């Protein structure tokens, strides 16, 4: 095995290994540390001097072993590919009955063809002495590797993340599976983080550079998926436990598992008996039954929970067998969505709140869309209907009372630009690919108390795109006189959440759907046309004579009128018109004859301080020169 002579630093892999040893072996001073595959053994001195343990190194290379001996350390030659019994015998011989506090495998595992004998021996040693096992391996999932690989480039080097002698690759998940397969379980970690690994080249590669849109998007998405995007070396502390099945078997099982097409997540607080019953009835009547239902009970008290359980129990068996109730006690209304999505097994997940109604072909329409556009967010059309509640003499509880026809205010197709300004799709009309939640870790923002669905939609739509069907498949109920999110959350709160989402969108690099360039060009052309038309109208208005003031009007009124009638002010009208158009502010009405005096005086000050007045100053100078 090749040896790497890298010095010890507190912030490199050796420093992190020592830190982990100290965390677990701080009270085992005088015991032994085994460094397996030690190479140049740069941790030998720190183990002795910092961790206060007796160091024993093991390596196949006799020269490395001899070098350690010369430095005053115990060491032995050990072939890591031997049988487990042989490895154990040699280690035990070196340990000589002393108690082992810790064992390290620093950048060893990726070089071995067959791990089983060594790992068996290590686990046995760890079990015998309650020793902690510190393992470090390079992280193949560092973003520098993945970003270049996405464009067909894998740069094998003499050392580093893609060392030419590596026989195995590890990501965090692979390492966890590997360790548990050999009976070791991670209990702590101290990974080595490098913003720029040895794979960060060429620096101008568009996928690597943080300054490029591509680089920014990739970084943004990758950093959300897990915590290892900049981890250079995975450095973990493990303790022994039972051996698990090989990881690849779990992967095969997951691939082969029959999952439903859709998971329906229904939030409920258990307060609307009839509404939840309506939802369950509507799901019973679906033309496509390839779905499961997850009822998420949020902060249910005992009676409310019993009620929800009763309603589920009452459903016909063919639906009941596909329903799960999970309870969420934390957070605001957004938390149940994250819990529901986490529990979902379907390829897609839809939100069906307990006061909305899907039509019979709701699931079927989503499924048809998936067949045409797998991986996209799926969107159908909802119509709005105003409802109240009523309880007649023969009803033990209130029931929905429809009070309006169908209000068709949601467009038939998803428009990304329009949705930047305001949400145009109620959650019932959407189904999200579960992979966006599970693999990209796009989560509902639990700091939002309303419009959490819009925020989630925009972040998901940015990477998945949206496939739309114009079919009306659901009814979005707008409650009048009954409790709803609009009555519970005041308008200021809605506005604040709205602004927060805008702020988040402004900070995110986005991938625009095909056709957006054309839309943007058309918008800019339209804007320019409006700005010109407005400027012309302003200019025409500016040429009108103002109404004469009475002779006894205050001097300030005369002054304002003179300013408004001046050539400087009129000639600069188009500039002010453009500025107002960009800021979307209306034209102020300045009438010296009717405004309050203090407003007149303020207007005079503002005009004299304005850009329009300042930039036309040369014109007035010329006029004055000519006049004199």
């Amino acid at each position, binding site marked *: 095995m090749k040896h790497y002579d890298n010095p010890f630093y507190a912030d490199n892999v050796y420093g992190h290994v020592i830190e982990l040893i100290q965390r677990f072996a701080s009270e085992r001073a005088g015991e032994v540390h085994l460094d397996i595959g030690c190479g140049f053994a740069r941790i030998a001195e720190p183990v002795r001097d910092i961790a206060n343990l007796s160091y024993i190194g093991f390596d196949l290379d006799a020269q490395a072993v001899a070098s350690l001996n010369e430095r005053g350390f115990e060491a032995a030659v050990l072939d890591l590919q031997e049988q487990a019994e042989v490895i154990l015998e040699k280690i035990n011989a070196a340990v000589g009955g002393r108690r082992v506090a810790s064992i390290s495998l620093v950048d060893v595992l990726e070089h071995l063809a067959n791990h089983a004998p060594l790992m068996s021996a290590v686990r046995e040693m760890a079990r015998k002495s309650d020793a902690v096992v510190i393992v470090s391996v390079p992280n193949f999932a560092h973003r520098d590797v993945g970003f270049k690989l996405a464009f067909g480039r894998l740069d094998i080097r003499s050392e580093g993340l893609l060392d030419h002698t590596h026989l195995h690759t590890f990501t965090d998940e692979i390492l966890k599976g590997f360790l548990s397969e050999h009976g070791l379980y991670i209990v702590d970690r101290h990974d080595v983080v490098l913003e720029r690994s040895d794979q960060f080249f060429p620096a101008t590669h568009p996928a690597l550079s943080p300054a490029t849109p591509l680089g920014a998007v990739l970084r943004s998405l990758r950093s959300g998926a897990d915590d290892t995007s900049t981890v250079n070396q995975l450095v973990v502390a493990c303790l022994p436990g039972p051996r698990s099945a090989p990881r690849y078997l779990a992967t095969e099982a997951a691939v082969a598992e029959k999952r439903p097409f859709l998971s329906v997540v229904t939030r409920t607080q258990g307060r609307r008996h009839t509404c939840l019953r309506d939802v369950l009835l509507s799901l019973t009547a679906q*033309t496509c039954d390839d779905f499961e239902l997850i009822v998420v009970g949020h902060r249910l008290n005992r009676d409310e929970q019993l009620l929800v359980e009763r309603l589920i129990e009452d459903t016909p068996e063919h639906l009941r067998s596909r329903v799960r109730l999970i309870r969420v006690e934390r957070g605001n209304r957004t938390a149940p969505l994250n819990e529901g999505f986490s529990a979902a097994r379907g390829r897609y997940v839809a939100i069906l709140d307990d006061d909305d109604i899907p039509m019979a072909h709701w699931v079927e329409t989503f499924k048809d869309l998936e067949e045409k556009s797998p991986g996209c967010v799926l969107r159908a059309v909802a119509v709005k209907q105003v409802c109240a509640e009523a309880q007649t003499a023969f009803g033990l509880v209130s029931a929905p009372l429809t009070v309006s026809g169908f209000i068709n205010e949601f467009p038939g197709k998803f428009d990304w630009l329009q949705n930047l300004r305001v949400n145009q799709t109620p959650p019932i009309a959407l189904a999200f690919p579960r992979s966006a939640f599970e693999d990209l870790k796009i989560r509902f923002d639990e700091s939002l108390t309303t419009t959490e669905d819009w925020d989630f939609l925009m972040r998901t739509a940015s990477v998945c795109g949206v496939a739309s069907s114009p079919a009306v498949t659901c009814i979005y109920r707008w409650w009048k006189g009954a409790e709803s999110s609009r009555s519970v959350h005041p308008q200021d709160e809605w506005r604040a959440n709205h602004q927060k989402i805008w702020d988040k969108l402004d900070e995110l690099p986005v991938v625009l759907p095909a056709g957006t360039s054309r839309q943007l060009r058309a918008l800019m052309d339209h804007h320019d046309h409006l700005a010109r038309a407005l400027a012309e109208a302003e200019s025409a208005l500016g040429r009108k004579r103002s109404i004469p003031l009475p002779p006894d009007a205050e001097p300030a009124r005369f002054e304002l009128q003179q300013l408004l009638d001046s050539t400087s002010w009129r000639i600069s009208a188009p500039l002010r018109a453009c500025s107002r158009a960009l800021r979307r502010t209306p034209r102020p009405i300045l009438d010296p004859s009717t405004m309050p005096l203090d407003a007149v005086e303020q207007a005079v000050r503002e005009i004299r301080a304005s850009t329009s007045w300042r930039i036309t100053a040369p014109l007035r100078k010329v006029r004055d020169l000519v006049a004199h």
Partner: protein
Amino acid sequence: MTTLRIQSILFHNELESIKRALSSIRRAADLAIAGGALSRVEVAYGDCSAFPVIGEAEVTRLRQEHAGYFDFDVTFFGGNLGSAKGHNTLLQHAGTDSVLIMNPDVVLAPDALIEMSRPFSQADVGMVEARQLPIEHPKAYDPLTGETPWATTACALIPRRVFDQVGHFDNETFFLYCDDVDFSWRVRAAGFRVIYQPTAAVFHDKRLSESGGWLPGGAEKYYSAEAALLLSYKWSREDITRQLIRQWQDLGIDYLNKAIAEFKRREAANSLPQRLDPEHKVAQFIDGFYAHHRFVI
């Protein structure tokens, strides 16, 4: 305790939708019997299709599947009798205390039968209608008493004694549509109340156009028009009948012309229905509807 017959008229319905409905009936019947609202349930279908929607083997299988929950039978009529006559034909063999008239694709909520039974605690209730999802019927009802001018037989529960007193559906006049309006008004004319029960929910698969509008089929358009003329005539509002004829005859729309022609044919043959409610105490004709509507679809 009450025995119940659920009867529906089939006309080329999809078998899967019928099976969904039967599964829901099974659950609703189970809960109603366990809760003491009913003692026995039977389901009777009359098939007006050109060929049987449910083959014999499937009928047997369904009968076995739901044995213990309800008795199940299908009568193949061998011809299209229409809704009113189809139901009347089935009613000849109905021996239960109550009859639930419903569309064959209607899916019952688990407690629908219990909730529909509730208003009959009062002896003057003659007919109870369930609330439909996803599209609720727009006609008004008293939010306190639940009283409504008429009940749609998409899903309506009627005691046997009411049929005995009022008679069956007027199949001589109505083929499809408005047979339920007519029946409801006769129930009310006999002194009973017609109740809308919002807590009794049923799902009736209705869909909207891409612009959110109602999507009537060809049969609905024609038979609704024909029924409008006959209903207004029967319930002593010939002024409305003649007004509709005047309005329609210049429009050049085929199904309206056909409806006018049928009315005139019956008029010429002296086979128009006997008139009822000469003092206009029961029937309502409001803006083209047979009750005030809370909203417009």
